[in-house]
């Protein structure tokens, strides 16, 4: 056994992301990173700190503020045989690159008859909760999941923070990785042997028989906390971490709901037209007659996120709202 395999030290989600980047850069010379302030500044959220020193300017490329050009350049570099990892500082700025993502990355393989797969990885920070207000608090990962040709993943654990990147790089398709800013300081240890991970399947993070909570990313821990509180009342909650938003792991999702007969979806995206609606419809389409209650959702209020903490908190999914919704579903007569 190598030194890497001994018990892992405690580290943060941020550190785990960095480990994933380091693994990738070390193991494949075709891999390089580009994005705004990832080098000299050390990354807006310090995820890429110290990578410039280790890997040098050619592979850790600070870009100008030109989201469309450097995302498109990532597509081109992927077509040219490299394995680019593009960091868009936050999902909020990715709107400037949407043409490249939707009209090129997502279409090239299909419209060229399979000639142009785009093995590109785009990482971006997502989510609210830090009082950054309306233009800096979007959660658009579920929105991106509408687009065929893209794969969308959201690591919620340290193992996934480290491991999903490698899986994304092995995938021949464009993969967008959404890293929730609320998780960056979360500490834990990596599971020995947890790498490689897959990016196709959901995971049950807590088993239970009374109700299924479907969630992902930053909301996972709110759901686990809600499950603990509900357990005190004898309500056994199953918590599913979706992990991938496109494709959705219908098999696991539907199987869980078939067992619990009730589903509550928790999503930091806006409610209308979010991934929460798609999850609900998948269940309706595949397990309608096994439901004992309507499917419910706890999502972000349909507002541009306001700055003050009390208003931001009121807008986002919260443990009390999750607990109350779950309780209401469970108490409904079948």
């Amino acid at each position, binding site marked *: 056994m190598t030194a890497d395999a001994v018990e892992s030290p405690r580290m943060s989600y941020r550190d785990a992301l960095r480990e994933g980047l380091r693994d990738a850069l070390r193991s494949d010379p075709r891999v390089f990173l580009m994005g*705004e*302030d990832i*080098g*000299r*500044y*050390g990354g*807006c959220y310090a995820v890429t700190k110290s990578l410039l020193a280790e890997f040098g300017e050619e592979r850790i490329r*600070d*870009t*100008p*503020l*030109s*989201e*469309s*050009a450097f995302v498109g350049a990532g597509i081109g570099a992927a077509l040219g045989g490299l394995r680019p990892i593009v960091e868009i500082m936050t999902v*909020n*700025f990715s709107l*400037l690159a949407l043409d490249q993502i939707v009209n090129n990355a997502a279409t090239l393989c299909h419209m060229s008859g399979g000639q142009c797969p785009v093995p590109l990885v785009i990482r971006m920070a997502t989510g609210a909760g*830090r*009082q*950054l*207000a*309306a*233009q*800096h608090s979007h959660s658009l990962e579920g929105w991106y999941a509408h687009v065929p040709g893209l794969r969308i993943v959201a690591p919620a654990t340290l193992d996934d923070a480290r491991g999903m990147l490698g899986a994304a790089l092995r995938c021949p398709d464009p993969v967008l990785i959404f890293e929730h800013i609320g998780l960056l300081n979360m500490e834990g240890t990596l599971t020995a042997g947890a790498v490689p991970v897959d990016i196709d399947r959901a995971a049950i993070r807590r088993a239970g028989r009374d109700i299924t909570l479907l969630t992902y990313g930053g909301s996972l821990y709110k759901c686990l906390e809600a499950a603990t509180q509900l357990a005190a009342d004898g309500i056994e909650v199953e918590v599913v971490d979706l992990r991938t938003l496109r494709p959705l792991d219908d098999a696991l999702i539907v199987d869980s709901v078939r067992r619990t007969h009730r589903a509550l979806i928790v999503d930091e995206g806006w409610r209308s037209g979010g991934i929460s609606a798609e999850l609900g419809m998948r269940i309706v389409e595949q397990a309608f007659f096994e439901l004992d209650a309507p499917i419910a959702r706890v999502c972000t*209020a*349909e*507002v*541009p996120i*306001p*700055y*003050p*903490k*009390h*208003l931001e908190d*009121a*807008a986002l999914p919260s443990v009390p709202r999750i607990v109350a919704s779950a309780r209401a579903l469970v108490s409904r007569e079948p």
Partner: protein
Amino acid sequence: MSANSTDATLDREHALTLLRQMLRIRQFEDRCAQLYTELKIRGFLHLYNGEEAIAVGVLGSLEAQDAVVATYREHGHALMRGVPMNALMAEMFGKRTGSSGGRGGSMHVFDVARRFYGGNAIVGGGLPIATGLALAEKLAKRTGIVACFFGEGAVAEGEFHESLNLAALWRLPVLFICENNLYAMGTALSRSESVTDVRAKAAAYGMPALAIDGMDVVAVQAAAQSAVASIREGNGPQFLECRTYRLRAHSMFDTQLYRDKAEVETWRARGPLITFTTRCKRAGLIGEADFLQLQKDADAEVDAAVIFAESSEWESVDDLERWVYAEPPT
């Protein structure tokens, strides 16, 4: 071409005014930094320390009919545009009495009565809006002009180019002010532009462009006045590059690994407040007592603003969904 100011135009009254305006911004922001460490102000906080001469020089050259579009680093612009310090401080706290009702915080100060249209936190995102505000002036046959502020980092954004072209093509009344503080977060201009003379970009659209010492408030004011006059006469947009330096961190999260302490200290000596104070004293326009008095006045105003903000109410959670869509005026 590069313009430099002479002291011929300065008198005591003018000197006191400019100094008061710069000091007011500086002291307001110093207090904000402190309030940030006290957790009274949260989110992102971007200070203008070192760049005050630009807002003071440019905005002092505007009229009430004109409109202003700024970035997330806009406290100085808001104060100069007449946003009351109380309302600004309350906005920093997120209180209902804030200039945006507390909704926006530091990055999104709005005051439509004073034609102050934000506070935009997307780099480059304000330029198209400023262009449209100018189009409205032109189509409505009004005589207002629009002042649009942005950093040199924005020059790399496509929206910058599209907007400059549109404004020049349609000869719209906009003054584009590039606050060139040499860095966009940690990225030096030489790492983001192949040609670092940003006037070359304006030239590609045939837009008159001038670079000036953005640390010299008199030079900025002189350049702004002549640009504004020309724009108001209907000669189309102009571009003003103000060369400056951000003396503090990009935001409260920045460890400044990307630049030397020595570089910062060199620039600190060239800061707009220190150089202007020295110059006015040397010219005998003001004395140390004047300076201390201005400081005291500003301090008192800031104190009062903090008390106002502290004692203001929070917006009710019941109103969270209000204003997602406009309400008919009551």
